[in-house]
């Protein structure tokens, strides 16, 4: 599918979706509460078949936290970027582990660094930091006087 066809397909699937302009790949900002349904559909549907998740990234935007999914189809060779934004007070999103098992560790990483809570995740614990670690290091407002040395 070309980017336009993809755009139309997703627009049909979820009317609320917003597409960013002038981007490298097709970027769709999707409603957070529907992320599981959308991803599942995108994977199962034979005409999209996004079976390969390149990366799952957490981002701390000035106004919101976001999870960015880079998806590729090995069958059709098209690539799409999904973006789900959450408010800063209580970041919560559905886990996509059931769609791509690769997401399990990556979601743990995002939880570890951004404090984004993934619903239905089988084992949501800190991955890199200690279990007792306070705070979420990759947030922009994270302060650590001991370990982060400002040059």
């Amino acid at each position, binding site marked *: 599918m070309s980017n336009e066809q993809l755009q139309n397909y997703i627009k049909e699937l979820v009317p609320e979706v917003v597409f960013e302009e*002038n*981007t*490298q*790949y097709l*970027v769709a900002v999707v409603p957070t509460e529907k992320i599981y349904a959308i991803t599942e559909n995108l994977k199962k549907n034979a005409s999209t078949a996004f*079976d*390969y*998740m*390149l*990366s799952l*990234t957490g*981002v*701390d935007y000035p106004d919101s936290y976001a999870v*960015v999914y*880079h998806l590729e189809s*090995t069958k059709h*060779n098209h690539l799409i*970027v999904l973006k789900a934004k959450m408010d800063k007070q209580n970041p919560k999103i559905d886990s996509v582990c059931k769609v*791509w*098992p*690769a997401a*399990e*560790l*990556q979601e743990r*990483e995002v939880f570890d*660094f951004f404090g984004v809570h993934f619903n239905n995740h089988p084992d949501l614990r*800190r*991955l*890199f*930091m*200690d279990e007792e670690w306070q705070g979420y*290091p*990759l947030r922009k407002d994270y302060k650590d006087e001991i370990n*982060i040395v400002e040059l």
Partner: protein
Amino acid sequence: MSDSKIQENLQKEDAYYVNMGPQHPSTHGVLRLRVGLQGEKVIHVEPHCGYIHRGIEKMCEKDTYSQIIHLTDRLDYLSANTNNEAVCLLVENALGIEVPERVKIIRTILDELTRLASHQLWWSVMGMDLGALTTFFYGLRDREKILDIFEESTGGRLLPSFNTPGGFMHDIHPNFVPRTKEFLAYFKKKLPEYNRLLTGNVIFQQRTKGIGILSKEDAIAYGVTGPSGRASGFACDVRKHHPYSAYGMVDFKEILYTEGDSFYRYVARMDEMWESMKIIEQLIDRIEDGPYTAKMKPIIKLPAGEYYQRVETTRGEFGVFVISTGDKTPYRMKFRSPNFANLSALDYMSRGFKIADMVAIMSSLDLVIPDIDR
């Protein structure tokens, strides 16, 4: 709960847990695996990462793009040059800079040399993990020659930090071409020896064939890329499907197998070494005189936006994701590391096999721990 789930939980209760790592000879670094065993049988593997987590992504947020290069060296230290290149390509693409063809060719040659060196080390260590200690020395002996090439041209053996946005730090050494040719001639004689010593060995084959089978669907779902993914039939070679640098100019084969067991992950890497040599041979005579870098501003500022650059490192697809606000430092930088995705499949692959097989599976995945922890 489904029946299989109950069964699994019962097994977990029955199991006893052994920690492999952080200080263990076969984890090649400081990865901790909590292995649930029943007798010798592995029923559950739980990776615990973070023992060498250095917060590189956080550090990148306050470094300029030229400074980030030296951090990417330290992700997957065995494909340092390729990691450097990923950031450089991202910056060049974002700024719309066309680098000279000479730079592209040299980058590709260095990439393939890195790949060869890394595969040699992997071969050495794979043999060692299976108990054949001699392979370790043979592999390192040959790798030394590549490191010499790197040292002579870039000044660094393992971590060259040679690429910069636009080109290179400085020009390659005049000895680069003859030395590389000499190495190729040498290694073509040594690679069959590897096969005689290890590949054909009946014990080795028994230890790896049919062990840790990963189907194509699972490989894609877990995002297992690189030779490990291609041994399962997952056509994921970025060099082939999204050519960068000079890969569009050369003819090479994407190694694909469908068996997906430890042995074919091994064979895929061995075949890749031949392909790498083929690529270098095609390019080595095409290095012409010319500038070693494109014209760059002293301070690089990426236009605001989000960029993603993928390259093929030795272990799979390496991705750099940058969100720029137009500043000289990135707003957010994320590295999609191949080892992290490969590690996630380890539990699935090693269930039901023996503890010795788990070691074989792990070394056939060729994990580099700093790349996982970042």
